[in-house]
């Protein structure tokens, strides 16, 4: 069971982060704080912070999967869990970068 969790955890955390950022975006577009900070809108800043947190969590998970303490024993489970660790990190970068580039609520 533990090996299965190691394989599933990173993509699953991506799914949680992705849904959370989408939800946060929906809520931010419903409320208008109007404030800006250093040239960026309050909305974009909140989203960018959420994006950075998601990256951070994925990097930590990837490091854990590569460590001897938390990672799987050598063999099949180690190879697959590390690959899916990379999937999680790449997925966060690939799917959430629009918080930096596209129009927030238009």
């Amino acid at each position, binding site marked *: 069971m533990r090996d299965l969790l190691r394989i599933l955890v990173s993509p699953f955390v991506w799914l949680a982060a992705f849904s959370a950022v989408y939800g946060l975006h929906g809520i931010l577009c419903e409320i208008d704080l109007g404030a800006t900070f250093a040239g960026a809108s309050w909305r974009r800043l909140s989203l960018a912070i959420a994006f950075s947190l998601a990256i951070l969590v994925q990097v930590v998970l990837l490091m854990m999967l590569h460590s001897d303490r938390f990672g799987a024993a050598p063999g099949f489970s180690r190879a697959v869990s590390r690959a899916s660790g990379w999937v999680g990190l790449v997925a966060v970068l*690939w799917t959430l970068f*629009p918080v930096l*580039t*596209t*129009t927030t609520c*238009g």
Partner: protein
Amino acid sequence: MAAVVSGCAGPLSTLDPGGPATRTIANLWWVMLLGAMAIFALVVALLALAFRSGRAPRTQVASERVWIVGLGLAFPAAVLLSLLAYGLWAGERLLPREAADVARVHAQAERWSWTFSYDDAPGRTTTDILHIPASRPVDVAITTTDVIHSFWVPRLAGKLDAIPGHVNVLRLEADVAGTYAGLSAEYSGPGYDRHSFTVIAHTPDSWRAFLEVDE
């Protein structure tokens, strides 16, 4: 190519653009079609070559590097990220941004007709015919009084849904004055087939005349 493009003409053709929005999307389509055909040809060629006899056997590790890391990961990632960037750039260009010369109209759907009203002519409504000025951006505020419908003028812009309780704004623009066919594009029951409307794009003079007509 010219023959293909001429075959694209039609009152409801998405590939016969009548404005900047649909031109952007039609270009996107042609780029994607060429790319898709090239990738398809590659896959079929690789499949066919697998059947030729007398190939030298390869080691598994080398094969994994070529087939999975190269063709399975790097190749699609490069293609898809480029396409995604192109698509998002195109999408940004189509958004209803603030501009000085935007005309604002309202479209309200019901089973099975459309009622249009105009910010520039308060109190004025038309049924199943939408009047807009040509060569000017127009924002259509879309909603519905009953079920979900979708506002679609294939030659002028992509479609946008009319959803109860929500108002969605679609930017469209006609290059030249003329008549454009419009459709409702979300299934709405037995009258769906004939749920359509017409867009008339006016020259500046005739647009002024339309707005000033007293009913």
